[in-house]
């Protein structure tokens, strides 16, 4: 148990996280560079744009997250929103009363 707690895991070291991020940046750079070297075949006019897919992927995801974040203001409710059904308080009171009755029965 204690050996587990003391053990350093891969991402406990911030250096490794940094390496991962730098690795991703490098991969991105290489992929965009390939856009210059290779001639892609094109079926949609926008594909002619340099780095279209890279740009599209990045912008799409940022837009997705920003819009979803805004959407939270509109649709987010407490975790028990649906649990507090209409009339739940009434039912709760009845159940309490019934519980009380049962209690009396036992006495």
């Amino acid at each position, binding site marked *: 148990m204690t050996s*587990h*707690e003391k053990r350093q*895991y*891969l*991402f406990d070291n911030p250096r490794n996280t940094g390496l991962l*991020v730098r690795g*991703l*940046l490098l*991969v*991105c750079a290489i*992929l*965009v560079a*390939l*856009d210059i070297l*290779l001639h*892609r*075949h094109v*079926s*949609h006019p*926008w*594909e002619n744009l340099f*780095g279209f*897919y*890279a*740009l*599209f*992927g*990045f912008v*799409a*995801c*940022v837009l*997705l*997250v*920003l*819009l*979803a*974040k805004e*959407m*939270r203001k*509109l*649709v*987010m*409710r*407490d*975790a*028990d*929103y*649906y*649990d507090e*059904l*209409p*009339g739940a308080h009434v039912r709760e009171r009845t159940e309490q009363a019934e519980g009380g009755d049962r209690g009396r029965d036992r006495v």
Partner: protein
Amino acid sequence: MCELSPVLPLYLGALLAAFLRGRPRALVMLGAPLLGALGLAALEPGTATSATLFGLGLAPVRVDGLSLLFALLFHLAAFIGVIYALHVKDPLQDVAALAYAGSAVGAVFAGDLLTLFVYWELLAVTSAILVFARRTERARGAGMRYLTIQVGSGVLLLAGAMVHADGGQGLRFEHIGLGAPGGWLIFLAFGIKSAFPLLHNWLTDAYPESTPTGTVFLSAFTTKVAIYALARGFAGTEALIYIGALMTCFPIFFAVIENDLRRVLAYSLINQLGFMVVGIGIGTELALNGAVAHAFNDVLFKGLLLMSMGAVLHVTGEMRGSELGGLYKRMPKTAILCMVGAASISAFPLFSGFVSKSMVLSAVVTEGYQGVWLALLFASAGVFHHAGIKIPFFAFFAHDSRFVATAHEPPINMLVAMAIAAVLCVAIGSYPTALYAMLPWQMNYSPYDVSHVITQLQLLAFSALAFTWLKLSGIYPPELRSVNLDAEWIYRRLLPDGIQRLCAWTAPMVAQVRTKAEITLSHGIHALARHHGEHGILARNWPTGSMVIWVAALLAFSLVLYYV
């Protein structure tokens, strides 16, 4: 046996599983899908059994390439699911799971709408049991809503089938189209089970409430039967292209902000169904093959993702992203298997999603639906974002949760099931020819060319970059304990609230009417009592003597009459 009915091995297995316990039951559970799959080899494509009911021709079993492919897929899914659930000692779930798989197989072999309806409803009932089997108050509520909607879909199908037959089209289940009599009803029935927008919430409501093992079965069958039915009945229906495009896009927004990780996957399932629906809507051979192949792959990679989340739920008892994290330290094998599923759903080259999703995208752009193509591209980036990164990141990485101290790898059978799915994901992705050879339509397509691989990698790498940037800069919305309103709000909140308000509003009037009615009634009762009551004139006891006098009087009267 299998020539008579390919569902028999699974149904008999379910029956036996109800009476057996322990090792014999495990053997039956494993044997049934294997035996069923072997039986498929004996089926001859192009054959059908026939029967007649009230003069209408039925075909309880119709065998062709499309139904065989789906039947094989369902046996495979059942086999993996059974291995995944071997540690569960709950006969109810075992019986329901096999019967559910059997119903799915029966549905894809149904050659007429009536047989399809029977299996359609059996799917509803058997799958609902897997939701109820969680045995929580939430699961009970979600299960009831699920069952209502699923049975409703069956009722629509039956109504559509009757109108269809009444219109002189017979009951044979071939291409229907929206213009056919009853076409819209059947379309809607299929649409509910395929989780069309606004009809989709049964899926995101019920699937995440099922047991860790139940959800794996649920994700495999119902929606894929619906995709099969759409491909058979409504291929080339243009409306499906736009419906499908909407299905790929809107759920990813919910998936980004959803906290329950299995619900994130439920939204992602709708997104994947969207790609299939678009393919069916396009209706060319490439597009239909793409839809069917993507259904095949989705069962495997979505199953794998749900299995990995089920393993986390099994070990920690927790599924909320806000409470999980850091589990790679204790569940490294599960984490790796989860990431294989994530790579497959994100359509990384060499993983299964890549070889099937690209068929749909190619078909869309070839047919000139440029706007839809952009929507699908957006959805593809979004899939990677919410299913490919979010699921593994928040469960296994992010911050260290309280479960890091106690978590451990799940039971070996769970790992084996996940490993089988993972191997299949990589195998199909790396060697798609085997899957392509099984596809029902002729085509000439190769997913691996330089342009395609490079563009897909660019899309994915920059999506990952966007996630990294948003996360590091703190813009990314944190996981919060919350519920997000969706179309289900209408029947979970608006209608119940509305009915309650209506009751409250009409209560004084109802009370007034009741009081008036009571007064009128009591007046009536009083009047009755006055005549018939205890002292009422009509209820008085008459002495015998008075009767004799009256008889005497009557006799005297008749005597008088006689003389007159």
